[in-house]
């Protein structure tokens, strides 16, 4: 375990102040929410001393608000808590399912969507689902707050766009249009307790003639960062999301992917399966609309 100090500020301003102080003194500060990534890292490979800034007790990071135009989800809310929110579940079933895939029941009592995003792994399960939902990150810093689209948040393996004096408050998701549904699928060799070898999130809007008017597709674990695949969305818009157009979207995902071969999968495997998951997630989202789930 690395040596560490611990502070639990109660406000955004105090947190920024703390981060700023550490930065001035040249000390490392690290934001802690559920700790399901941070504590494991401190116990294994990342032994550098640091100050842990526990943001779980700040109101802004624990609030869910569902407004007419947009939804706000506090960054530190455990996925287990989010999944008890029926209203959220009905609006963004795919996103909530992606949060429900992370770890065990016990882990889900701590692990948050914000933490998943800030860990910035290419394989983070909630990120493609957030991308599909056009989510924006609300980031606080010394000069106030700023919004960054999720697809621009992660900048590399384990890195993101925040400076050392910034931290994530929450996520802002547009209220889904009528007849909109999302879905997220990941591939793992097991059934649970694993990391995505490939992930794909799809959000679709169909008009009353079953024609797709809006679509977004996010993919994970097939590039250094999760990706927004605009061409996959374009392949679906204007179609009835039938086999041909879903296949075209799948191929667009394959083209956008730049995976690596490692212990979890090969380039060929990941490229192939990202298309399969895009297709299948598209079918789920489409059928959710057609079956009148909203």
């Amino acid at each position, binding site marked *: *375990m690395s*040596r560490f100090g611990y502070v639990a500020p109660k406000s955004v301003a105090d947190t920024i102040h703390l981060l700023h102080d550490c930065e001035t003194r040249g000390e490392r500060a690290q934001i802690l929410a559920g700790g399901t990534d941070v504590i494991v890292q401190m116990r294994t490979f990342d032994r550098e001393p640091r100050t842990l800034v526990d943001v779980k007790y700040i109101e802004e990071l624990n609030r869910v608000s569902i407004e007419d135009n947009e939804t706000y989800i506090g960054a530190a809310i455990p996925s287990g808590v989010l999944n008890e929110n029926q209203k959220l579940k009905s609006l963004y079933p795919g996103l909530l399912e992606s949060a429900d895939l992370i770890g065990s029941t016990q882990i889900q009592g701590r692990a948050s969507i914000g933490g998943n995003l800030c860990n910035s792994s290419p394989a983070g399960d909630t990120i493609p689902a957030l991308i599909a939902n056009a989510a924006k990150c609300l980031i606080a810093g010394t000069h106030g707050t700023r919004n960054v689209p999720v697809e621009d948040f992660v900048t590399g393996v384990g890195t993101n766009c925040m400076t050392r004096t910034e931290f994530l408050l929450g996520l802002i998701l547009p209220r889904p249009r009528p007849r909109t549904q999302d879905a997220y699928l990941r*591939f793992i*060799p*097991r*059934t*649970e*307790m*694993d*990391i995505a*070898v490939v992930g794909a999130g799809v959000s679709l809007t169909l008009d009353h003639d079953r024609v797709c008017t809006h679509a977004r597709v996010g993919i994970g674990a097939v590039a250094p960062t999760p990706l927004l695949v605009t061409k996959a969305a374009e392949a679906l818009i204007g179609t009835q999301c039938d086999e041909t157009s879903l296949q075209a979207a799948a191929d667009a995902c394959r083209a956008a992917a730049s995976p690596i071969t*490692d*212990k*979890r*999968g*090969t380039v*060929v*495997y990941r490229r*192939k*399966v990202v298309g*399969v998951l895009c297709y299948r997630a598209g079918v789920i989202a489409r059928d959710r609309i057609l079956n009148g789930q909203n």
Partner: protein
Amino acid sequence: MAEAVREFTAIGTRPIRPDGVEKVTGKANFGADFSLPGMLYGKVLRSPYAHARVKGIDLSEAKAMEGVFSVITSADFPKENPSDMSCNILAREKVLYHGHALAAVAARSQSIAEEAINSIKVEYEVLQPVLSADAALAEDAPLVDENLRTNGDESFMPSNVAATVHYERGDVDKGFEKADYIVEEEYRIPSAHQGYIEPHACVADVNEKGRASVWCCTQGAFEVRNYISEVLQKKISDIKVTPSEIGGGFGGKTVVYVEPVAVRLSELAGRPVKMVMNREEVFRATGPCSATVCRVKVGANKDGIITAAKAWMAYEAGAFPGSPVTPGCMSIFAPYDLKNFVIDGLDVLVNKPKVAAYRAPGAPQSMHAMESAVDELARKLNMDPIDLRLKNAADEGTEAPYGPKYPAIGLVECLKAAKVHPNYVNKPAKDVGRGVAVGFWFNIGMQSSAEIWVAPNGAVTIMEGSPDIGGSRASMCLMAAETLGIPYDSINAVIGDTESTGFCNLTGGSRTTFATGLAVVRACEDVIAECKRRAAMTWDLDTEQVDWENGFAVPRPGVNIEAEPLSFAELAKTAGRTGGPLVGRASVNAQGAGACFSVNWTDVTVDRDTGKVDVQAFTAVQDAGRAIHPSYVEGQMQGGAVQGIGWALNEEYIYDDNGVLENASFLDYRIPVASDVPMIDCQIVEVPNPSHPYGVRGVGETPIVAPLAATANAVREVLGFRINDLPMSPPRVLEALDNAS
């Protein structure tokens, strides 16, 4: 001979285990739970290279560090004739695998110990590693051990082949001439780890007179005592080993890694030393099982009689000789009555951790090959796979391929039970594939001791030396209850340390319920003899005139005496007046362990777009001889099935080109989680073992043998072609599907 089938009162029931409360409430003490005042923490420095010559080690900075009490290398072990185990525990001239230990420190805290380890400077001359049996057998292969000659024969040039094994009978060439169908295939089985949840852990405390006390998690405290004695050349009487509860072993805790290191560190520091491996160290530096290449050729005539069989196998031993190639060769054809066969096996050195036993060591690999080949044969013959096996099955009197004639065995009974089992009679749905395979393990007997102590209220303590891994305390209590004729609840079983019970070989080889159970039954009989003597004295009879019936001493029929039967409790209560406390003891070197056979079948589906195999159903039928506690027999069957399924589908050691293990964590070394497998249906068959008073056969190892081929055969059925290499992981299955289309 085995007793005729009779009603038992205790045996075959399913009571709660004596150690259950402590384990479910978290109070039970496992290896890492023990501590002593003033204790230090030991850490090990491990090689970053898979193969390198150690040119120099600079310990000066570590030794000078505040809070460091002792620092050792192999130079601090006895210098003469080090055993392989000694060289594995602390490397000598060469490091032989990535993660090979070569120095250790004891310090006041774990972080100081870590700092000290990081301060040690080692100069290496990096050598080319040998990373597979194929590479090791290549003509110009680098040598893992420059002095190793095959079978110790000085007329051979040094090579990576430590030993060869050969068995044959009859004339295989003529046998193949008689065959109408021949299958010839090569199969590759990867290295798999036992995956015990509890890492190796110990505390060692050496006193001023050099006496060592060791607390550790192990499958055998007496073996640990022997190993410490050998490695450190210490007198056995100067070593006391106390086994903790054990969080899984599966063969992996039959050897030692940290115990002798902790003893030596403690000896030099003058303080107790605790060492606990982390998961990464367990994966990198403890023994997995052999990766194996098996070539099998089997021929049968059109009636389905196997006319000849031939096998060639190379077992990776890791960095030191001693793979289970011999049991692998002995087991490959064990289920069959064969007239003509040839078996060749090689024990091959590679720059990987030294392999350790893993549940039926050697058999899952070789029998995966044979059972896959027999499945192909059944397809060629268009014959039900169980029928084909019944036509060739070994039975009582069959000469086993490894020599002896089988006494009563249960293979045919298992096959017949499988054939009529509802799970087999119900044919799988479309797109679901079914695969069948049989399993086998020899089982062993060896030495065990047991003592019975009777309290004045008639309660019984069993003292024995077999660490309880699979519920053996409960089995001992059940056999004692049955033998003595007293309630199960009045009996407790205690696992002693090496100074509180007689010698006992380790818990392994599926021997505990059989051999230690035999000692317990004999010790109970010793108590009964004493009870009869006391009753005879009370009644003024000869001991021969007293019988023991259901927990009571009674006058033998025909003995003309008016006497109320004396209960065990009454005899215990009055023992002080009749000659002192009631005790019994026995020791055995148990013979006739009795081979255990099984039949498994599984139904699987394959996602053709992702290559993922889903196990839909799995049934295990196995001969237990006699199931003492059926739940724990089923527990063994289910646990072995899950380990076998994991090995078949996902588990493997993945090395990079430099011999660095890439998946040294449970995240990427994928043992199945509960939701990955269906409920494993079990049917216990009972063909009593004639060498045990209750007919017990060991049941712990056979369960892992058949699932590999059963799963592979099921996948073969779904895909329409066979994947010869395990694991059948999603990328491999998808690649095979791509190549097939």
